[in-house]
């Protein structure tokens, strides 16, 4: 295992210390329990937007804390959901009296821990609305399973709801918006190489030189199918087609296309894949109105990518374009 760390047991706290120094103008970091908070929290009368999850997906979620996006993020151990006391503390620190939207990725651990944290915060008197993002079309959904995973779409939910809250939209409105975005966002990913969790010390799975994992998750979980490596012209439709078929997206739709890197894939390859995806969407009469390209929801150093498609309307475009000032996304301010 080759990592720039001291001790796997302290890696999250050690990284948070550096992050706090790097972004002292934006963030306030507390350590026990660990929470990354917007520097000017709580913002009076604003709905607090709070998220979190296992670490190792940076910049998700701490990189999205700041004006126009998240009020707080709860970083768990690497690939491990945070604990309820972190969630409770985040909600307490950001409560401006207007309630909170808690954005949770759909993993059993995250759902259970955030649920408990929200219960504790409710006892503290915070009106908490929990929304669960489950945009990964690679996972077959059913009442009898854990359901779809939350992946790249989470960033878009956080941006849109964060923008609405910043404009003064109330708790019901923010919750409804979150559900709307979740309803019309879909994603799928692939991995060319695995990643190594610091405390595990070994790669999460083994891939042959000419293999890739299609439908991989963001925790180094093996994907749904192992398939032969292929040129980008084949990889991109292998992600895009299931996404398009799922919602489904149709001719005439306006979309945001988010081409995400898993961490170890160079920007050059992401741009290349993005270009192919845009061409394929144009061929189907789907209009790409907004785009995001880069490593925003990562799996440590895993090589791979995901595509996320969000169906847009004027309201969502406006909220996407609204000013945002965080470590990882910033515009208009």
């Amino acid at each position, binding site marked *: 295992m080759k990592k720039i760390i001291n001790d796997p*047991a302290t890696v999250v706290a050690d990284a948070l210390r550096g992050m706090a120094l790097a972004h002292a103008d934006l963030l306030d970091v507390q350590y026990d*329990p660990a929470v990354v908070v917007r520097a000017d929290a709580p913002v009076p009368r604003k709905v607090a937007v709070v998220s979190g999850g*296992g670490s190792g997906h940076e910049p998700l979620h701490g990189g999205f804390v700041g004006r126009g996006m998240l009020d707080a993020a709860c970083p*768990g*151990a*690497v*690939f*491990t*959901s*945070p*604990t*309820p*006391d972190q969630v409770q503390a985040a909600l307490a620190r950001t409560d401006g009296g207007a309630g909170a939207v808690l954005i949770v990725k759909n*993993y*059993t*651990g995250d759902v*259970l*821990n955030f*649920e*408990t944290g929200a219960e504790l915060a409710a006892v503290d008197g915070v009106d908490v609305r929990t929304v669960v993002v489950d945009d990964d079309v*690679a*996972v*077959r959904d059913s009442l*009898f*399973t*854990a359901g779809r*995973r939350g992946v790249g779409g989470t960033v878009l939910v956080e941006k849109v709801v964060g923008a609405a809250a910043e404009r003064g939209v109330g708790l019901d409105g923010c919750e409804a918006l979150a559900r709307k975005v979740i309803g019309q966002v879909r994603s799928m990913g692939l991995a060319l190489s695995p990643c190594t*969790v610091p*405390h*595990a010390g*070994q790669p*999460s*799975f083994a891939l042959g030189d000419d293999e890739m994992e299609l439908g991989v*998750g963001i*925790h*180094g*979980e*093996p994907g*749904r199918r192992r398939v032969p490596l292929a040129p980008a012209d084949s990889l991109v439709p292998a992600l895009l087609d299931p996404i398009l078929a799922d919602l489904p997206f149709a001719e005439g739709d306006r979309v945001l296309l988010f081409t995400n890197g898993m961490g170890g894939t160079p920007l050059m390859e992401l741009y290349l894949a993005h270009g192919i995806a845009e061409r394929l969407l144009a061929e189907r009469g789907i209009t790409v109105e907004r785009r995001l390209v880069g490593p925003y929801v990562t799996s440590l150093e895993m090589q791979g990518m995901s595509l996320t498609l969000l169906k847009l309307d004027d309201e969502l475009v406006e909220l996407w374009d609204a000013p945002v000032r965080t470590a990882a996304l910033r515009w208009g301010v």
Partner: protein
Amino acid sequence: MGCTAERVAEALRAVARVVAEHRDELVRLDREIGDGDHGENLNRGFAAVVSKLDAEVPATPGAVLKLAATTLISTVGGAAGPLYGTGFLRAAAAVGDAGELDAAAVAGALRAALEGVVARGKAVVGDKTMVDALTPAVGAASAAVAGGDVAGVLDAAAEAAERGAESTVPLVARKGRASYLGERAVGHLDPGARSTSLLLRALAGSAR
């Protein structure tokens, strides 16, 4: 010879030792069909329990179990944190403020723990989770109460849990992270079922 608070604390220390010894095995099992953190998470959690117990052992078995519950909830994370945490919390509630636990109380605590895990996680037997180990353990523990002591109850539970854990190998998972794998989870032991059987074996060993 019932179980005092001190004995329960001892038992938890034994659990922590076993979890530490099997940390890498649990990480490996979870790497195969999950995300590779189960051993690390439990080890962090039980180490925290031990350091709390080193500071002070609460007065009753129930209070010790409750301390373990809250510590696990606030340090483990992942699916296992709230599930084991809820299990211990329900077990604590079940034993109330009794000063000592007899065989029936232990079996009752196990049953309450199972109910807590199921209430939280909604898994049923056959979903390839810790429930597959805990459910038969609870049945065996209840059956062993008549004429048995605490050690006998826990022995029976551990024995059944081990078989229950083994039974997860051929299954497709329907809950937790392994459910994303579909058929590819077949042939692998569920890490949570394995940790449940290790916990019960450690408790049984400590009761003897």
